């Protein structure tokens, strides 16, 4: 039988993966403009030849402009050329962000969004970033991981005066490296990070080193928005209750849609106060870079889970070679659920028979929960009311039932036939005989 692995191995012998699709790279180059709307890529599969091996590409490609990064649910930051300088404009301001239908957070962000819009540039560019402050307090912007003059580093008080409300500052520097970086305030961080102020700063290599078909970026964050409230509580240091991919929680996180065989880069960044082990099902990946730069291929090893530390980024690379709906999630189980009380009694194994009816005489809406576990919670939540602006702890419905997830969870959808990257292809159709089946009773 001709297995997938053997096929990949065979193909790997043909050439460096990066060289296989010049037409696509050209198309990306021509399309790239920075002013376009966020998210979608042009159809990158013109001239699609064959999937690359899943080992990290060892060769460098021809010089080319980078492809656009897909940052789900997050806009790109437009730029214009001004005297040879790529000029961006960030506006720090309060924003409203729907984490999922039924819950909107009064956050702080940039240009109406949290995460802030993604800055994309190319190694060698000189960039000028204007930062206007429309917050009620001063701020600054630190360009996390980027080599720059000390006075451009954005540490309020240390390397620059704070940007007071109403003021606009200009940062200007040459990009001397490439990789996945971040921007965030370095002023009143407890408040401003808790409120959601952060964004991607992606610098593409002048010469694509490891071109991919799909280049995704996900900002990880943890929030404390107490049940019944809508504003993040900056006083919380440990007891966060909402965990987001690009400031969205499951089931509102966008799926990652790829064609079978696509080379995929997934850029993960973390400015929360907790580390997140991000796990992908059905595949293995190679950690190809950090915010410190590219990891030499010889130093990489395969993984299914990458721990994204606090204040760091990780680029992982893989070939999406297995069709299906594959879960992509933080492996801390409390990060894949929406708010739940942390001090509630443990009802596991406790029957309320006899008492429940008595309690209902006082509280007509009382219902015993948790005796056999919490799974019935998702169905309860469908017909019972929760506090205002509060999501039930688990949600999402798949083709086989409740998915019982929340927070840092999404689905990598790998399809052999895909009409468009921009349209959700629906649930995977499993070939006959390839699903788990009930054999008893």
């Amino acid at each position: 039988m001709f297995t997938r692995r053997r096929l990949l191995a065979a193909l790997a012998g043909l050439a460096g993966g990066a060289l296989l699709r010049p037409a696509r790279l050209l198309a990306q180059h021509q399309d790239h403009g920075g002013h376009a709307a966020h998210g979608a890529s042009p159809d990158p599969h013109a001239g699609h030849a064959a999937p690359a091996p899943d080992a990290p590409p060892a060769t460098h490609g021809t010089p080319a402009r980078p492809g656009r990064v897909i940052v789900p649910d997050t806009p790109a930051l437009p730029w214009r050329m001004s005297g040879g300088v790529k000029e961006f404009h960030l506006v720090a301001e309060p924003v409203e962000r729907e984490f999922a239908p039924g819950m909107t957070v009064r956050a702080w962000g940039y240009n109406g969004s949290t995460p802030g819009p993604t800055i994309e540039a190319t190694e060698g560019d000189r960039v000028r970033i204007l930062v206007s402050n429309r917050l009620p307090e001063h701020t600054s912007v630190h360009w996390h991981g980027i080599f720059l003059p000390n006075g451009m580093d954005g540490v309020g008080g240390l390397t620059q005066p704070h940007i007071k409300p109403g003021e606009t500052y200009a940062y200007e520097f040459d990009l001397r490296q490439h990789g996945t970086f971040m921007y965030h305030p370095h002023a009143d961080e407890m408040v401003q990070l808790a409120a959601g102020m952060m964004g991607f700063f992606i610098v593409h290599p002048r010469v694509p080193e490891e071109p991919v078909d799909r280049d995704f970026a996900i900002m990880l964050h943890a929030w404390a928005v107490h049940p019944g409230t809508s504003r993040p509580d900056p006083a919380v240091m440990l007891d966060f209750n909402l965990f987001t991919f690009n400031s969205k929680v499951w089931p509102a996180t966008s799926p990652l849609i790829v064609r079978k065989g696509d080379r995929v880069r997934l850029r993960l960044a973390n400015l929360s106060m907790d580390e997140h082990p991000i796990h992908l099902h059905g595949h293995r990946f190679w950690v190809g870079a950090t915010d410190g730069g590219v990891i030499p291929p010889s130093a990489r090893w395969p993984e299914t889970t990458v721990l994204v530390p606090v204040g760091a980024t990780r680029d992982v690379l893989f070939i999406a070679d297995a069709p299906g709906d594959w879960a992509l999630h933080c492996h801390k189980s409390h990060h894949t659920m929406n708010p739940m009380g942390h001090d509630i009694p443990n009802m596991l194994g406790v029957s309320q028979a006899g008492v429940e009816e008595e309690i209902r005489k006082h509280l007509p809406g009382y219902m015993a929960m948790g005796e056999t576990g919490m799974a019935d919670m998702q169905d309860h939540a469908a017909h019972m009311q929760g506090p205002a602006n509060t999501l039930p702890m688990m949600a999402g419905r798949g083709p086989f039932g409740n998915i019982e997830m929340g927070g840092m969870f999404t689905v990598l959808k790998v399809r052999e036939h895909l009409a468009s990257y921009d349209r959700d292809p629906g649930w995977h159709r499993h070939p006959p005989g390839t699903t788990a089946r009930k054999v008893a009773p």
Partner: protein
Amino acid sequence: MPQHRSALSRPLFGRMSGLLSGLLFLAGCAGMPADRGLSSVSEIVAARGEVRPVWSVNATDELEARNRVQALLAGGLDAEEAAEVALLQSAALRAGLEEVGISHADLVSASRPANPLASFFARFPDGSTGARGTNLGLDLTQSLLGLLALPSRTAAAEARVRAATLRAADEALLLAAETRAALYAVQAAKSVAAMRGLAAQAAGQAAELSRRLHAAGNLSALRLALDEAEYEELLAEAGRAQADLAEAHADASRLMGLGETAWDVSGPLPGLPANDPAAEGLVLLTLDNRLDLASARALADASGREHGLAVDWRFLDDLAAGASAEKETDGRWVVGPSLEISIPLFDQGQGRVAEAEGRLRRQIWEVRALAADAAAEVRGLAARLAARRGVAERLRDRVVPLREKAVAEWQKHYNFMLAGYAELLAAKRAEYRAYEDYVTAVRDWWILLAQLRRASGGRLPGDAPRAEPLRLPDGAAPTKPPADAPAPDHGHGAHAH
């Protein structure tokens, strides 16, 4: 000339008895009223907004009153009915009412002149004098001072009857007010006991769940002990509420004179009426209406008349006129008038006048003191009533709804596993506690209203005696359904057990 003398003597006696009857008529010589003055007390009590109490004066209406009381008790009592029972049934009140009869008796005595004094003698002559006939004498003396002072004395006694009547009516109103207050206290105590019972029950359910959690290995002995202690403490509080209820019930029984008779309230407290009685003109109204004040004024009137009497007759200790007839031993009659008069040589009545004046002054000061007290009392009561209304309305319109809202919000947190059973049931207990506070505040308002009514001498303008029963959580209203009524459907509501 015996004929002549006897002829003389007849018209004299006739004239004297005519004069006597005339004086008696002028004095309006009083008789004892058949009801011993009770109906005039009834009138006053009814005029002050109470039911007209029909006090028994004989065995027939004794039965009638007893039947009325039994009928009232059978239906369960509200404050108005309890006041009626007390008016009919209280032996202590009846003892006080007898003062009215006694004052009438005093009036009867005062309105009658002293009886004429007749004296008679027979003397037998010593034979040596040669006289043979018996010497006979007859004197008839009528105290004139008593007769002349009769109208004033009667008027003073009438004033004292008025005073006694008003005082008795005041006592009746006081009893009615105290009984109302006691009944409000029973109604409130019953609701408080019900609320505490419900709170304990809710804590008991939480404790039961905690026991099950502990048995399942999910809850430490420490947490279980805390939850069970909370439950037991609430049971103790519920027990205290039962004791308070028994005490309130006994107080009301005592005021109504019910002894061992079993009775219950007919329902919970009436809710807060829309308005307090009008506060304007309250002091003037009080000075006009208040019965102890009116009684004191009547006493001042009596003292005034007694003072006048003392002044008018200060020089006379006594004045008597009469006729005297004597049969000499020789058989002849001598007949003639007699007059007795005290000579104000040493005592010109200074002491009596000064004493009467002192009594009058004292009574006038007492009237003033009572008036000042009454004015201060009604002002204070009206102010407290308004303040208590503020408390009761805040509890009714803000605290209770917010506690209910908190329960609803806790329930939403519970629904989403953001809170546990203990917090939810504790919130419900806080709601019962808010209702308890609300009931207590409404009780305080009604008790103050009863006191204000009494202090201002009866019902007030804009004073609604009854209102809708106040709203309590299901199952907590201390109503007992009529025996033949179907059991009420409480739906999801809580039951008191």
